[in-house]
């Protein structure tokens, strides 16, 4: 029997399953207060999903405010935080929108579909802004590479991302692949999408104009993913195993491709007043958010929703997270044209309701009123928690345990240093990612300028002018564990640097904040520190946060993941022809290191390989980062630079190896004066990059660095002819004077063999 508003008024004391739906007692009481009666079962379903941590940001809101409060002044932001995705002006009438979201829990339960629908969800966020998606990238984190559970989850996640993204026709241009014990049982599957549009095509999610029609279009609504939001994304996995793991949504990328084309066509034809994608919380979310952002009222006839399974109850229809659905607000005059375009793309569409001026969201089911709520109370005025937090009891001891030469034995002989480099470049975290990225289409659309393993992904936006964007995501969660404030800043500066070395100017920031349970005060402290660190750093670097996503409850039992604030930076480049690649150029090109190297090994890849985590992470230096960025962008613009590469994970040794592999050309290096070879080769000090300069440009480049006060030290030269003297005639060779010699092929084999050996050829 249907629980209508009438019935709810008649039996106020009926017991309701609010706890099973994830609501707390005071939240349930608060719903009763808002409505002046008990909620109907449909209303309870709506509130439970919309007030879940995943949808309401109830624990994070008070901290996320800093991104707005501390936002640097910028003209670049056309649409800020709060919409489906922020929109950034990149000049010449073009805008881009980008966002990263987590799909961690579903991907652990069902790796292929979880990861696939993560891509689908973020793509719909982008199209609902009016943009055409132009690229995706996926920051991925798993438990130890050789753990059986990683072998279960990783191949499915990669296949799911590829299976969905390839079928949508979106180039996958980068991302991350990190292994760490802390992600055992809690892999992080974050998905980023970027879209481009002309300024006039920006659309927002609001239901304006009384009498306008609300259209649900795309896939039919089924029983998949019901309660996924409230249960899957907002509950910790029990150490004894999954208590509640209902169905993960199932994706149909072909339908999503049609949805993209149909949506862009109706938007460009001017047929849409407001638009919203259906993701977590499905119809509950879309109708309440559209109404809340618009005139405030909407009347929905829920029985008109096209179903895959006719037996679904209204509560299930409201909560279903079936994929590939969108909701649009259309004027009555344009509805026929809208429907005709949907039909052209074989997309089913149905008018499910209309915009009203009542200030209420009313939902009917076969003539009975089953929902009658103020939409803001569902969508925007959910509970807000000031969760208690405190510095973890173990934090001081962790920071005191620095990886000094006394604490950890350091390699010092040439043989030991050589072996260290080999160990690093073949370690799962630094090995070639080709096993993963070769399963993704990076060429589709024909605008991919740079893709993994380059520092940043770069996409041409305008074929005429060569205007393009670059994007990178980064986070070293070990740094964040040692110091979450600095860790978030280190993630930002690395991403900022990756954009800059590619020749693009950093413009805006998105983030995906992956943490343990907010109910643990120590985790909440990490979160508060990280958000404050990131907001402060964005202000220092003058680039605003345009949006993001929070994923809590990434923990098994009491054991939380390392705090993992994944930061994505977007940059713009006026002409992609000027991009700076990683591969160095011709014989005789000179190799410089910009910036200073210090004895900083806490949280480094080298320390990780020694099984050590302790100390304070590398120092952040915003002034140096800004300077480095300006120099790299100027060097690219003025044609002074042949190649460049960020120095971060694994230090200079790993950076030059990656460049040699990319170029397939050897080079000779020497260790600069007054620095220990181990520190120079493997420290992870910040604000450094490797720059490769043609001899004819050397003077101009070094004079620019000197004039701006950036230290630039020549420490190598490209040389394809080192093989003979090194005893490897005909081969490309890297020589580090008086230390060691490597054949490039030997490095390549070590670098490329690791992931296939772990996950199969």
């Amino acid at each position, binding site marked *: 029997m249907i629980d209508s508003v009438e019935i709810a008024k008649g039996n106020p004391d009926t017991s309701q399953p609010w706890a099973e739906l994830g609501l707390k007692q005071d939240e349930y009481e608060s719903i009763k207060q808002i409505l002046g009666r008990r909620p109907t079962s449909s209303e309870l379903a709506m509130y439970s999903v919309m007030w879940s941590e995943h949808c309401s940001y109830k624990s994070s809101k008070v901290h996320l405010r800093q991104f707005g409060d501390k936002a640097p002044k910028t003209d670049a932001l056309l649409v800020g935080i709060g919409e489906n995705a922020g929109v950034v002006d990149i000049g010449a009438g073009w805008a881009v929108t980008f966002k990263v979201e987590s799909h961690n829990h579903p991907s652990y339960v069902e790796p292929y579909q979880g990861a696939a629908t993560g891509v689908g969800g973020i793509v719909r966020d982008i199209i609902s802004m009016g943009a055409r998606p132009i690229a995706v990238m996926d920051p991925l984190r798993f438990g130890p590479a050789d753990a059986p559970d990683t072998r279960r989850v990783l191949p499915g996640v990669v*296949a799911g991302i*590829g*299976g969905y993204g*390839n*079928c*949508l*026709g979106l180039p996958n241009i980068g991302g991350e692949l990190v292994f760490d014990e802390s992600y055992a049982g809690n892999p992080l599957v974050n998905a980023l999408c970027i879209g481009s549009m002309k300024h006039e095509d920006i659309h927002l999610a609001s239901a304006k104009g009384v009498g306008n029609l609300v259209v649900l279009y795309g896939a039919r609504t089924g029983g998949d993913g019901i309660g996924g939001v409230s249960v899957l994304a907002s509950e910790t996995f029990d150490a004894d195993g999954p208590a509640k793991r209902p169905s993960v949504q199932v994706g*149909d*990328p*072909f*339908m999503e*491709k*049609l949805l993209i084309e149909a949506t862009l066509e109706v938007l460009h034809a001017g047929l849409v007043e407001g638009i919203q994608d259906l993701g977590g919380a499905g119809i509950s979310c879309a109708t309440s958010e559209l109404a809340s952002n618009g005139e405030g009222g909407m009347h929905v006839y829920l029985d008109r929703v096209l179903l895959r399974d006719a037996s679904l109850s209204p509560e299930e229809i409201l909560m279903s997270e079936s994929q590939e659905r969108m909701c649009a607000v259309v004027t009555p005059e344009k509805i026929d044209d809208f429907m005709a375009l949907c039909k052209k*793309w*074989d997309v089913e569409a149905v008018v499910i309701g209309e915009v009203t001026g009542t200030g209420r969201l009313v939902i009917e089911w076969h003539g009975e009123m089953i929902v009658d709520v103020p939409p803001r109370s569902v969508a925007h005025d959910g509970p807000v928690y000031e969760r208690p937090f405190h510095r973890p009891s173990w934090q001081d001891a962790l920071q005191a345990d620095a990886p000094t030469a006394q604490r950890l034995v350091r390699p010092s002989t040439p043989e030991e240093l050589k072996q260290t480099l080999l160990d690093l470049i073949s370690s799962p975290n630094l090995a070639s990612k080709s096993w993963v*990225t*070769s*399963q*993704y*289409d*990076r*060429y*589709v*659309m*024909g*605008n*991919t*300028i740079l893709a993994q393993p380059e520092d940043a992904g770069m996409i*041409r936006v305008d*074929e005429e002018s060569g205007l393009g964007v670059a994007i990178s995501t980064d986070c070293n969660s070990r740094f964040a564990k040692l110091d979450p404030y600095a860790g978030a800043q280190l993630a930002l500066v690395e991403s900022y640097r990756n954009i800059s070395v590619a020749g693009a100017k950093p413009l805006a920031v998105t983030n995906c904040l992956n943490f343990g349970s907010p109910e643990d005060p120590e985790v909440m402290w990490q979160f508060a520190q990280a958000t404050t660190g990131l907001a402060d750093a964005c202000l220092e670097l003058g680039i605003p946060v345009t949006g993001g996503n929070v994923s809590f409850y990434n923990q098994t039992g009491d054991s939380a993941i390392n705090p993992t604030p994944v930061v994505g930076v977007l940059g713009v480049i006026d002409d*992609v*022809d000027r991009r700076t690649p990683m591969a160095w150029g011709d014989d005789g090109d000179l190799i410089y290191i910009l910036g200073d190297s210090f004895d900083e090994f806490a949280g480094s890849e080298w320390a990780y390989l020694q099984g050590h985590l302790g100390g304070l992470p590398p120092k952040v230096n915003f002034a140096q980062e800004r300077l480095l960025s300006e120099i790299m962008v100027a060097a690219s613009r003025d044609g002074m630079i042949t190649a460049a590469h960020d120095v971060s994970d694994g230090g200079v040794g790993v950076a030059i190896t990656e460049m040699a592999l990319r170029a397939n050309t050897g080079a000779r290096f020497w260790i600069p004066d007054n620095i220990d070879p181990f520190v120079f080769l493997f420290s992870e000090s910040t604000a450094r990059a490797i720059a490769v300069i043609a001899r004819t440009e050397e003077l101009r480049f070094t004079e620019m660095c000197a004039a701006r006060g950036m230290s630039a030290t020549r420490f190598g030269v490209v040389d394809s002819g080192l093989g003979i003297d090194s005893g490897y005639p005909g081969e490309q060779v890297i020589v580090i004077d008086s230390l060691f010699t490597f054949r490039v092929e030997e490095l390549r084999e070590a670098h490329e063999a690791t992931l296939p050996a772990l996950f199969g*050829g």
Partner: protein
Amino acid sequence: MSARIGVVTFPGSLDDADAARAIRIAGATPVALWHGDADLHNVDAVVLPGGFSYGDYLRCGAIAKFAPVMSLIIEKAQVGLPVLGICNGFQILCESHLLPGALTRNDHQHFICRDQKLRIESTETLWTKDFSPGQEIVIPLKNGEGGYVASEATLDELFAENRVIATYIGGNPNGSYRDIAGISNKAGNVVGLMPHPEHAVEALTGPTTDGIPFFTSVLKSLVGAS
């Protein structure tokens, strides 16, 4: 007036814009053809682009052959219309029986995207004239179902009649029989190719520009015919 080359968009086509760009770069005019529109709009040649037409449901290319535009293309191809099918387009040409054999799931079961070395085996087709025999090229390859299979007799015939237009070298990426990357029909006007020449037409975005001759070849034959 430059030659008009049609590019068919099926629901799920992905590389249609890339094919149109390649046609422009080669010096011709791309003409968008819609799957549901039984009209070839006076095009001089047709490219069936890569993607996942109709979601690759049932079998790759199996539904596309029933599209209204395909019945016209099949008819005209049998009387000489130049048709190039790339990746999913190759699958459609096999399903349509314009080309023999079939494309099956990669032997290693993964989708694979990489820069692939090929040897041009036949320069006698309308789409490969601008290459030199035995020329080695590198263009992107990206497929999940790119393993070319056919009976031994058919394979022998394809080689005997010089209808294998390109073979994989430096490693077979998908288990294709006899390393076959592309084939033509007997007349040489219909060509199917698994790798993607349309992704190798600009130095900025492709690994090479080795894909361009596929598109300039057909223009020469059109000029020659008119």
